[in-house]
């Protein structure tokens, strides 16, 4: 029976591509599918593009491919990447230029049409409300602050690029799992209404889209049992014509692929596991079977699919204020009490200097900064050290920067025994997320696919 072997690439912009080398050299893969875009990423890319219209893609694209192509080309390994971000055409230009410079002759496909920021009026004219998907709120409240709006596309245009001979497919926003479904559709001859096979394909993509999280990274179980995380292998899937799949990783790499590491990834960022909604299929994960068939080998079968939804998800991002923050550490004895006194001093001074904030978060790092009100107070009395962190939400950068200037005087004029006064932390722009829905027909009519040789 025919099959295809696909390697999981990055899990986000900034992730390491070193583990992909092992998948290419020793994992016998035909494709690498790589997910570069988190929601925050699009905001970063939008700022890049505002500064320079030739930016707006993830700039790890060229260095990553320059590092991987010398081992990928001799093996015929192809790439599917959403590194195009908000500007897939600019990504293609930079990539074609780089390939030419190094004498590599490859076909680069590009998928356009996910970005709908310029088309929002048109969408509203044809009756799309753009109301917030979870709260029902009206988009007019954020409309003038929008930085991007991207629809999650499915695998079809990616398959079109592969069918046209692309060695590298660049996209903007698509469902992450669609990056993986595309090579399966291209290789295995599935139909777009083979719902159960599509469901299997999406489950496999979902398992692979977060790099090391499928192979023992961020593992909530017995994390000590995961070997050699320093050289973790990223996940590899082999998927057969009938939809059955085996998840593994390259021989000699660290990490672990077993029932426990994979089931954690299966439900990661999932809401209703009976209806995992993607542009290509509505997936039921509860019929799935996962069985360990060898060391670092898990067979995945039995996902069920229902017809693809009529509506596609759009995620827009809008400017939502600025965060200012500052930190200072206090030593035993009574570290927490000292940090608490420092917090009181700062709060009084915030009022006196008239610092205008919409929200204040006070955290004691080493005590409650991660679990908040759920932190266990029985440990509070005798901590070795505690860092006070105060974060404020302000309307502008200038206001947010004021919090940092209140901290240094605490060194000589506050409670005793400080450390870790690491200087000012730059205020950071905050981004509100606006998820909404639109009929797929009005999105898909703008999808364009092209392939060009370097």
């Amino acid at each position, binding site marked *: 029976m025919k099959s295809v072997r696909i390697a999981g690439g990055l899990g986000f912009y900034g992730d390491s591509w070193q583990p992909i080398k092992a998948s290419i050299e020793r994992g016998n893969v035909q494709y690498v599918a790589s997910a570069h875009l988190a*929601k*925050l990423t699009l*905001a970063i890319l939008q700022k890049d593009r505002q500064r320079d219209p030739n930016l707006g893609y993830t700039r790890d694209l060229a260095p990553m491919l320059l590092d991987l192509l010398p081992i990928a080309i001799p093996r015929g390994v192809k790439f599917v990447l959403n590194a195009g971000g908000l500007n897939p055409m600019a990504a293609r230009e930079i990539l074609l230029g780089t390939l030419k410079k190094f004498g590599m002759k490859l076909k680069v496909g590009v998928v356009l049409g996910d970005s709908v920021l310029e088309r929002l009026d048109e969408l509203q004219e044809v009756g799309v409300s753009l109301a917030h998907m*979870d709260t029902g709120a009206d988009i007019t409240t954020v409309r003038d602050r929008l930085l991007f709006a991207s629809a999650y596309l499915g695998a079809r245009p990616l398959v079109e690029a592969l069918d046209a001979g692309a060695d590298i497919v660049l996209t903007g926003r698509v469902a992450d799992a669609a990056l993986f479904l595309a090579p399966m559709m291209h290789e295995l001859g599935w139909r777009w209404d083979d719902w159960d096979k599509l469901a299997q394909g999406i489950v496999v993509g979902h398992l692979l889209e977060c790099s090391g999280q499928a192979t023992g990274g*961020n*593992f*909530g*179980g*017995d994390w000590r049992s995961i070997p050699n995380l320093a050289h973790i292998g990223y996940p590899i899937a082999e998927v057969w014509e009938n939809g059955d799949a085996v998840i593994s990783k390259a021989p000699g790499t660290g990490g672990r692929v077993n*029932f*426990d590491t994979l*089931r*954690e*990834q*299966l*439900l*990661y*960022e*999932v*809401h*209703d*596991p*009976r209806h995992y909604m993607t542009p290509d299929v509505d997936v039921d*994960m*509860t*019929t*799935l*079977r*996962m069985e360990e068939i060898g060391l670092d080998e898990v067979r995945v079968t039995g996902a069920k699919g229902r017809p693809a939804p009529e509506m596609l998800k759009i995620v827009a*991002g809008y400017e*939502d*204020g600025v*965060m200012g*923050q500052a930190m200072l550490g206090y030593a035993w004895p009574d570290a927490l009490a000292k940090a608490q006194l420092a917090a009181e001093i700062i709060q009084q001074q915030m009022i006196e200097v008239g610092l205008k904030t919409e*929200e*204040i*978060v006070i*955290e004691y*790092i080493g005590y409650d*900064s*991660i*679990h*908040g*009100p*759920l932190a*266990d107070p029985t440990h509070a009395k005798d901590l070795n050290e505690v860092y006070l*962190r105060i*974060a*404020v*939400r302000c309307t502008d950068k200038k206001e947010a920067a004021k919090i940092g200037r209140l901290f240094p005087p605490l060194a000589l004029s506050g409670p005793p025994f400080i450390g870790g006064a690491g200087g000012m932390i730059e205020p950071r722009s*905050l*981004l*509100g*997320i606006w*998820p909404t829905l639109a009929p797929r027909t009005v999105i898909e009519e703008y999808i364009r696919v092209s392939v060009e040789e370097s």
Partner: protein
Amino acid sequence: MKKQLVELAHARSGDKGDIANIALFAPDQATYDLLVREVTTERVRTHFAGIVTGKVERYEAPNVLALNFVLHGALNGGASRSLRSDALGKSLSSALLRMEIEV
């Protein structure tokens, strides 16, 4: 007898906008049945008072011995606008494991 969930199960959390999910995994069928009985939507909502502002939903995935909790209003407006250190809610999973249940 009471036991803390950390002794019985493992968990992973993820974020989507201002909604977090926490999947709770049992090692065997008997423990899964116990979790289904004890770790109710209402108990989880109470457990996360002060962090989660909206409703809590629970989904069952018995094929992988897991309960999936969906926590609305869990992330200070969402990771990219949150002021919290754990903006992504990656540690909400371990916070759930603090819960004590009757075994």
